[in-house]
């Protein structure tokens, strides 16, 4: 007790401390929805967090714990059955003024995952500091002070430490590969010194675990844990929410978010180890370049320039905090429901025990010997036997010779004579008639079991089910008044969304042999639930049935264990040191997004036409007012579904934009689109700024300048040109990506060829502009001189008709050619030729761009001017454009200029 007091003292001191420093109350986000289907069919009628656990709704335990750790503001996110949750909270003690914290409910009906929930929370912008992220079905009695303190200290040292996960020792069984909570075994790698989480995997390959060598790249010492359990209590920094925002595909907290961050982290190491510091510096600069162009939005949304993008978001770290003596567990499935109920009865979660006045609902139960709790007003026959670790709720009557053990019985139940109940969870107002035998079952509110019913182990009876006389419900059955939804989508999260809104009428009901009961209108199966029975037995999928025992409330049958142990022993020895195996693991592993990029060879053109059409359609939809983000998203998903490369995607988009530009000149819609794009770019830029930090503080100025320019040219420029600008902007990320992959030149040629094609076939109006656009492409560093020159030389042997464009851009090509010869030679030649050539080009430029496109024209001119006047041409180029055109990573000459520019 003294120790406890000491801790309390320390807590308050620490709290004072942090208050002085931060003055941010400790906040918590409570997800009152588990976003899975494991508690079906019960959750069809009542949200999971309101299901009674040892006669108290689960959410009470979570709130009680949040209260005990000093949380001051709780945001309860409700999704399915949100009204029920809200009503419940309104009535509860927590909403009363006497409560120590404030509860705000946040409601959203279209959230289908924890990721969506957090995005909703983010949009509310209510989270100001570190917060506790917990799901409403978590039971804990841990003291958060230490973990919180550690988290804050880490944050001070390293702002990238965004999350602290609470873990607990729990060894999974060798045979079933699951913990006693019924969750799958988990493999984690943790740095023993810093407690940083390095690796997280819950779907472990059956025999061989392969761990990326990068794990050990920066540490010499790692603990690999198979015996830990994730408590699903996280201390998060506000960045976590914005990370969910940035990565709109993050759904699952662990599967996507944690693994996503860790993988990025891994890539960080990869970049660390593979590339030298100057390459990293270049990546940095590319980021800066994009920001300058307001391109970050495109970058982020298109997921294209992953290497670049990655550099900006990666490096976030997740840490763990292991609790040893306190309790923390989440009810994930029926098995954990049973296990945790027993833990509560056995007082592991003290003070969260039935006879403690902790909850709003005061249950005046008394603890008897052998862990038997019973309410004072229980009417119990003298001959009834109440076995160990059992709770009997108030107002329950128990008949003669009835035996109850290891069970929880709710309030107002009526249990007849000679009933045998073992390991069951019987909720409120259940009527069990004489002679029933219940074995490891969950019986929900208002169920009526007629005499002689036998529930085999693992049965779930949902609300108000009635079972007729002498019926045996087979093991692992789930019985509900609601028919089973027919759609058994493999993607449980998606299914959950429509399940919460409507139950689809099941066509398989008839096949479920449902017979009619005299009174009730729907078809119920007489031989399943009995003559007077009410309810459907849910069928299980074939695959599911095999695994039914895993998550059931019933203990794993002995036979199954023996079977498993035989399987375990007979498991063949793994060809562990197979040389080929090693080769495969080491070298064949695809390097995923980080470097790989299908070069744009286009693939088969059969479905590429379809793809083009689809993209075009999407793009047109964008014009009718669909949000820009969604368009990008759609195009990305199209790309993935058609298995196209980014280049195809860009090509199609480019194409449709060109067409649009020709079809509907001077349509006001175009304007809107352009403005939208640009504005979007702006906001994302500012966001990106905060990410990249101090190095680019001076870019704020750039943005302003850029804005003015944009406005200026938007006012007067002819919209065809602006459309090109937009489409080129889409192009650039792809090009840079390509440059990193060195397959640049071929692709660039293809781009030119495609462009040529467009000019020739679809848009003859464009033809005169060809060379201007080409030179624009060049001057924007989209095409390198190598590419253009090789294009020219490729065209050398072609027909005269094919060569019109080459001829058109001849003067431009000559300039490029001269530049390639070498600075000195070029200077010499340039001094002779620049007057005419440069003049030609410049006047052409001026002619085409001065209409309002002045900034481009001017920079182009200034570049040429600088080039001819100063021998240090490359450096000037760099100052103007950030990057030299010779190819993304390989650039070298521009470094100094850029450094001068961006490093204050």
């Amino acid at each position, binding site marked *: 007790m003294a120790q406890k007091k000491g801790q309390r003292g320390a807590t308050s001191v620490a709290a004072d401390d942090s208050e002085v420093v931060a003055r941010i109350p400790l906040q918590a986000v409570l997800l009152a929805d588990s976003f899975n289907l494991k508690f079906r069919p019960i959750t069809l009628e009542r949200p999971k967090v309101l299901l009674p656990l040892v006669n108290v709704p689960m959410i009470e335990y979570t709130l009680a714990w949040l209260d005990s750790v000093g949380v001051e503001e709780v945001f309860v996110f409700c999704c399915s059955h949100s009204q029920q949750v809200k009503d419940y909270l309104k009535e509860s003690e927590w909403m009363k003024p006497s409560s120590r914290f404030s509860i705000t409910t946040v409601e959203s009906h279209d959230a289908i995952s924890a990721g969506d929930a957090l995005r909703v929370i983010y949009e509310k912008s209510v989270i100001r500091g570190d917060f506790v992220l917990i799901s409403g079905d978590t039971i804990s009695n841990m003291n958060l002070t230490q973990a919180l303190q550690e988290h804050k200290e880490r944050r001070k040292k390293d702002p990238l430490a965004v999350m602290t996960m609470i873990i607990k*020792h729990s*060894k*999974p*069984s*060798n*045979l079933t*590969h699951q913990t006693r909570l019924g969750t799958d*075994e988990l*493999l984690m*790698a943790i740095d*023993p010194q810093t407690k940083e989480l390095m690796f997280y995997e819950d779907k*472990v*390959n*059956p*025999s*061989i*675990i*392969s*761990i*990326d*060598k990068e*794990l*050990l790249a920066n*540490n*010499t*010492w*790692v*603990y*690999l*844990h*198979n*015996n*830990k359990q994730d408590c699903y209590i996280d201390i998060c920094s506000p960045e976590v929410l914005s990370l969910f925002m940035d990565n709109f595909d993050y759904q699952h907290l662990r599967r996507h978010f944690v693994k996503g961050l860790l993988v990025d982290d891994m890539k960080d190491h990869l970049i*660390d*180890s593979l590339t*030298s*510091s100057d390459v990293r510096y270049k990546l940095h600069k590319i980021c800066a370049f994009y920001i300058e162009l307001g391109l970050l939005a495109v970058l982020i949304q298109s997921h294209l320039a992953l290497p670049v993008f990655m550099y900006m978001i990666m490096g976030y770290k997740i840490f763990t905090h292991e609790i*040893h003596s306190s309790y923390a567990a989440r009810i994930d499935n029926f098995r954990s429901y049973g296990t945790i109920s027993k833990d509560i009865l056995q007082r592991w979660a003290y003070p969260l025990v039935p006879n403690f006045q902790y909850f709003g609902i005061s249950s005046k139960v008394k603890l008897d010997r052998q862990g038997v709790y019973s309410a004072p007003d229980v009417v119990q026959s003298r001959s009834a036997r109440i076995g160990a670790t059992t709770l009997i709720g108030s107002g329950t009557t128990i008949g003669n010779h009835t035996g109850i053990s290891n069970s929880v019985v709710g309030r107002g139940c009526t249990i007849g004579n000679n009933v045998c109940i073992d390991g069951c969870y019987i909720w409120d107002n259940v009527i069990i008639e004489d002679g029933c035998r219940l074995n490891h079952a969950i019986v929900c509110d208002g169920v009526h079991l007629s005499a002689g019913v036998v529930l085999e182990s693992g049965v779930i009876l949902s609300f108000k089910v009635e079972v007729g006389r002498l019926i045996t419900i087979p093991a692992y059955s789930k019985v509900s008044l609601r028919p089973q939804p027919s759609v058994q989508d493999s993607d449980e999260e998606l299914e959950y969304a429509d399940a919460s809104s409507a139950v689809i009428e099941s066509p398989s009901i008839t096949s479920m042999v449902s017979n009619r009961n005299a009174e009730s209108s729907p078809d119920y199966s007489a031989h399943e639930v009995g003559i007077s029975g009410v309810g459907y037995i849910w069928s299980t999928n074939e695959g599911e049935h095999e695994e039914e025992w895993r998550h059931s409330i019933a203990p794993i049958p002995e036979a199954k*264990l*023996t079977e498993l*142990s035989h399987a*375990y*022993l007979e*498991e063949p*020895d*793994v060809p*562990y*040191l197979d040389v080929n195996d*090693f080769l495969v*693991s*080491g070298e064949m*592993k695809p390097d995923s997004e980080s470097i790989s990029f299908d070069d744009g060879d286009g693939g088969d053109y059969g479905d590429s036409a379809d793809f083009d059409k689809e993209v075009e359609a999407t793009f047109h939809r964008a014009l009718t007012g669909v949000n820009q983000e969604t368009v990008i998203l759609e195009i990305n998903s199209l790309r993935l579904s058609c298995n196209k490369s980014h280049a195809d995607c860009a090509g199609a988009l480019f194409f449709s934009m060109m067409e649009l530009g020709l079809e509907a000149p001077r349509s006001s819609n175009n304007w809107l689109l352009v403005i939208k794009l640009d504005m979007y770019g702006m906001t994302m830029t500012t966001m990106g700024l905060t990410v990249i930090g101090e190095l680019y503080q001076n870019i704020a100025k750039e943005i302003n300048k850029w804005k003015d320019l944009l406005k200026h040219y938007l006012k007067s420029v002819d919209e065809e040109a602006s459309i090109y600008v937009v489409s080129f902007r889409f192009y650039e990320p792809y090009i840079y990506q390509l440059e990193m992959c060195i397959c640049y030149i071929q692709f660039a040629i293809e781009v030119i060829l495609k462009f040529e094609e467009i000019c020739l076939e679809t848009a003859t109006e464009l033809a005169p502009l060809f060379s201007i656009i080409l030179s624009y492409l060049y001057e924007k560093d989209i095409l390198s001189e190598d590419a253009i020159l090789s294009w020219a030389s490729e065209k050398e042997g072609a027909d005269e008709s094919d060569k019109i464009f080459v001829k058109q851009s001849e003067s431009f090509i000559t300039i490029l050619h001269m530049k390639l010869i070498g600075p000195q030679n070029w200077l010499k030649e340039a001094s002779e030729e620049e007057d005419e050539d440069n003049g030609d080009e410049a006047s052409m430029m001026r002619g085409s761009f001065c209409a309002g496109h002045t900034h481009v024209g001017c920079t182009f001119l200034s570049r040429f001017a600088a080039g001819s006047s100063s021998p240090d041409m490359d450096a000037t180029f760099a100052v103007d454009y950030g990057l030299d055109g010779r190819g993304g990573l390989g650039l070298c000459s521009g470094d100094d200029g850029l450094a001068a520019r961006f490093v204050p």
Partner: protein
Amino acid sequence: MTRMDFEVVVLAGGASSNLSPLVSQELPKALLPVANRPVLSYVLELLEGSNLKDLIVVVEGEDAAQLVGGWISGAYADRLHVEVAAVPEGVGTAGALRSISSYLTANDVLIVSGDLVTDVPPGAIAATHRRHGAVVTTLLCSSPVSGPSDSGTSGGKEKAKKPVRHNIIGLDPTRQYLLHMATGAEVEKDIRLQKRILQAVGQMEIRADLMDAHLYAFKRTVLQDILDQKDKFQSIRQDILPYLIRTQLSSEVSGNGLVSSESGSNKSAVQDELRWLSQHREIAPSTFQDSQPLSLKSQRDDQRSHKCCVYIANESKYCARLNSIQAFSDINRDVIGEASHLSGYSFSAQNNIIHPSAELGSKTTVGPQCMLAEGSKLGDKCSVKRSVIGRHCRIGSNVKIVNSVVMNHVTIDDGCSIQGSVICSNVQLQERVVLKDCQVICHFFSVLYNLPTSWYGRKKCL
């Protein structure tokens, strides 16, 4: 435990290829001088210190065996009972063992690499082996961090110096059992673990900073079985040990009657001990004890498992293997430097060893951590720092020797400068030779080495 319970096999190697310019037919690896004593003597004295006096020294190659045998009989005639066995060259460590395995009779065999320089008592490994009833116990020590040390030419631009990784080792949380070991090329690959082993322990410690020191204790019967059955196994480190580690939960080796009856009592004792241990630990995962209620299973599991144990040397202990030229220089430096107790010499007040018969010219300084053996002569104004100079060397004036090893009967003329080099016996350096990071050897007497220019980082073989 009588002395005969352990038999000791010293694998002294032959003309190892990665020490190529230093070792030769005349100078097998075992006889390379470390602080003017053959490297093998460190192992032999270590064993002697643990009262392990019956040794089999296996040498690759007949000639080398004769040389080694001759030296041992001279130096240890009255102290150790050594049998020198010659095996053909290139048979590998497993092959070497195979050729002598029929002579082994004791319960357990201690196998030591002849190039080990350490002060970890082998008795400790033997005791650990016995205590666990292990099939194999191996000595792990911290990887040497020195690397290219002060000569530091390479790696300037590379990122912060990484210690060389010799092994990736997986241990159980009590650090008693060896669960995973990656050697050689595997170290650079992804880590691949057997899930069953991880499951058995629950938590595995993966270390990249430990090194297999090539000192093993094997159960003799198991070793013989493996050598007989797996005739493709070449090396202890790459074949036998990984095999034992990965089959430790589905053992085939202790299957035959004799072994199981013999080890049965052993096992149960160990089991008790483990149980006792685990009761006294907060986390109680023991590899071989199952919480499963099925007694049948755990029994069967017992029979089918064997233990691979480790003894982790204390970090304060010195442990290094002479398996590269870099290691040769490092060990020479360390033995007269930080691990000076190994050399067996008594150091002077200046923290160096100068034999009384050595002659020093005027204004010649011999710094700390130096060694000057008998009969060597130094001229005037010489400077010797952190170097070993062998017997009967003649060194002229104005010679600088830093971080180098000079073997016996070397003649160095005036004005030479030698840095980070190894100069083998009988070499003669003429005036003003500058050597940096070289190994200079010669096979014949009186070859002159006349190079007025500098030689950097070359292996010179005349």
